[in-house]
């Protein structure tokens, strides 16, 4: 109980500190709002990668170092489906860009799910008796994914050019223009956080997953096919990461650096929140997202241009030094 209270205090302090620094650093409420919104935007994207990472680690003891690659693949598939040219050209079939964006996101999710299923069934399953090799293998898969993407789409980054509904509209607050799309992504992330939480808390499969995180052998002994649950959870985790990539693409574009960046950031999230803890992942995502946004703000006009990219790693190092089990993790 005291541990939980300490975690809550820590969260409030970090959150307050971040918001405080941001408020001091920004000259107007509008600037402050922008920092806050971009932090939440980044945080929600991180959550989409980190949730799969965390649940899969808690349930299967596999740290999937290829999780960031699914995000990247999602971004590329969505970009490719939306725009003319490329592998799949839908511009002639579906002229409406809004509808095509929905199709593009669905295509990305399906691609992520398929690749996730193949990875778990084909490559990870033979290795459950050799856990250290699973880590090595997912690292290898992330390299292959990166090289495949380079091979198919070349190394030149794509920036999203086709505007549609939510992507092009803005709203004004405190005399500052905010992109509606960011708010849209934050909303989507919030909906997903709640949906997954409900799924874990209320549904039968969610109960099995939570029981599996607690004690895998016991669940198996109760006559539940844990392997099938593994496959399902792994596939879903990859699909969510690809979904994240797809909805991030209109803002961040598609580039080969996405995978590694989001992998490291979401690892920071998972360690900060506590490995295998769902609520920890949700809180950690928001904290890391805000921290990156604040760092971006602080770095403007100084020599620390690398600060935003180093921030998640600094957080990771700090957490490992001070409290390796994370905010919500069991101390083991």
């Amino acid at each position, binding site marked *: 109980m005291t541990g939980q209270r300490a975690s809550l205090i820590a969260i409030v302090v970090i959150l307050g500190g971040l918001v405080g620094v941001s408020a001091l650093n920004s000259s107007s409420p509008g600037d402050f709002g922008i920092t806050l919104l971009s932090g939440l935007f980044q945080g929600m994207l991180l959550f989409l990668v980190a949730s799969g990472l965390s649940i899969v680690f808690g349930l299967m003891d596999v740290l999937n170092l290829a999780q960031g690659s699914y995000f990247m693949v999602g971004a590329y598939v969505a970009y490719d489906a939306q725009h003319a040219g490329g592998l799949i050209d839908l511009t002639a079939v579906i002229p409406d860009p809004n509808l095509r964006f929905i199709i593009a996101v669905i295509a990305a999710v399906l691609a992520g799910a398929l690749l996730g299923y193949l990875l778990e069934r084909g*490559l990870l399953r033979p290795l459950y008796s050799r856990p250290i090799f699973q*880590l090595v293998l997912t*690292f*290898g898969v992330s*390299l292959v994914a990166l090289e495949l993407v380079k091979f198919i789409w070349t190394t030149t980054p794509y920036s999203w050019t086709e505007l549609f509904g939510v992507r092009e509209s803005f709203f004004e607050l405190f005399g500052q223009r905010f992109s509606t799309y960011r708010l849209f992504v934050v909303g989507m992330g919030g909906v997903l956080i709640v949906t997954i939480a409900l799924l874990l808390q209320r549904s039968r499969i969610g109960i099995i997953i939570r029981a599996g995180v607690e004690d895998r052998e016991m669940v198996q002994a109760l006559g539940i096919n844990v392997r099938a649950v593994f496959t399902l959870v792994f596939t879903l985790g990859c699909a969510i990461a690809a979904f994240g990539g797809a909805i991030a693409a209109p803002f961040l574009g598609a580039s080969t650096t996405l995978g590694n960046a989001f992998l490291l950031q979401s*690892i920071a999230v998972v360690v900060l929140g506590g490995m295998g803890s769902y609520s920890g992942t949700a809180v950690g995502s928001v904290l890391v997202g805000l921290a990156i946004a604040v760092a971006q703000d602080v770095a403007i006009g100084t020599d620390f241009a690398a600060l935003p990219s*180093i921030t998640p790693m600094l957080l990771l190092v700090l957490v*490992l030094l001070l409290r390796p089990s994370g905010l919500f993790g069991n101390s083991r």
Partner: protein
Amino acid sequence: MKTMQAPNQPTWRHWLRGNAFLFILLIGLILFPFIVGALTDSSPFGVPRGDRMIMRGESVRWQSVLIEVYILAILAMSYNLLFGFTGVISFGHALFFGVAGYVLGLMLEFTAIETGWALLLGALAGIAICGVLGLVVGLVTLRLKGVYFAIFTLAVAEMAFIFFGRWQLTRAEDGFAITELPLWLDPSQNRLNFYYVTLIAVVITFLFIRRLVNSPTGAVFKAIRENEDRAQSMGFNTLNYKLLSLTIAGMLAGAAGLLQVILNKKVGPELLGVSYTVDPLLMTIIGGIGTFSGPIIGAGGLHFLDVFLRDAELNLGGLVIDIANIWALLLGIIFILTVIVFPFGIIGTWQRWRARRKPPA
């Protein structure tokens, strides 16, 4: 492996017999530049022009290929000490490789110390800093579960990559060239000398690791790999042993980084890139995890494959692909296949096959 020692045989002769294959290989490698030179009718010293040497000809070209193999072999052996013998997996080995390279480069180019001393100081400082770095990284994470160490090294190496990639003093992404090197070591003037320097470094590393792993300390390393809890309950402070292994591995990787900087006469963030983590990992696994010669075989095999395939083309029914473009992809696929179907690597599989053929008497 272990044969009974005949009582009246001098030890050195016995030692020579036990290592006959390695000894012949070593002599072959010592003579290699001259053999290639004689076969292709080119001088192993390069072509003299005025008072300078031009590094041209087959012998000189193959020397540099082998130098690269030696450097990768040292890196892979250091990785193997950590991963193969102690069971600690790192995803940031490039950190040590690159940091040592940067230290040497800074010492040579950015200080007023005389070249020879700068080289010596830079090399010593680079290796020492790598040792300290290994110690610090280990102290932070080696108490935790193995996966935290892997994550932490990945993050620290990435952080260093980003940092050096943006550091204005060392010209950020472009890096800087090494212009001051003692003439006798300069690979663009006396490559043969540098060839022997790297060869000696490989031999020393090999003998050192073999001595270390066969010592009582090495026995504890292997016990940690097999079952850390058990080693702990037998009274060994496993943290100290893991720290020792990591520190030594870091210093060896740093030494490889120094040699790489001298060979390319350039320092840049690519030294910290992920490929210098992937390469030793892959070479160790393909050659044979936890074997002495595995990493060397892996380094040689993969690098020669790279050199031979670099100019080749793959013809897939009209679609012509340069191997050079998909080399990293091929490596990744080989990597995954090896992990799944060939986990003991070349040497490991061979040793198992031999052990099965010759049942112990």
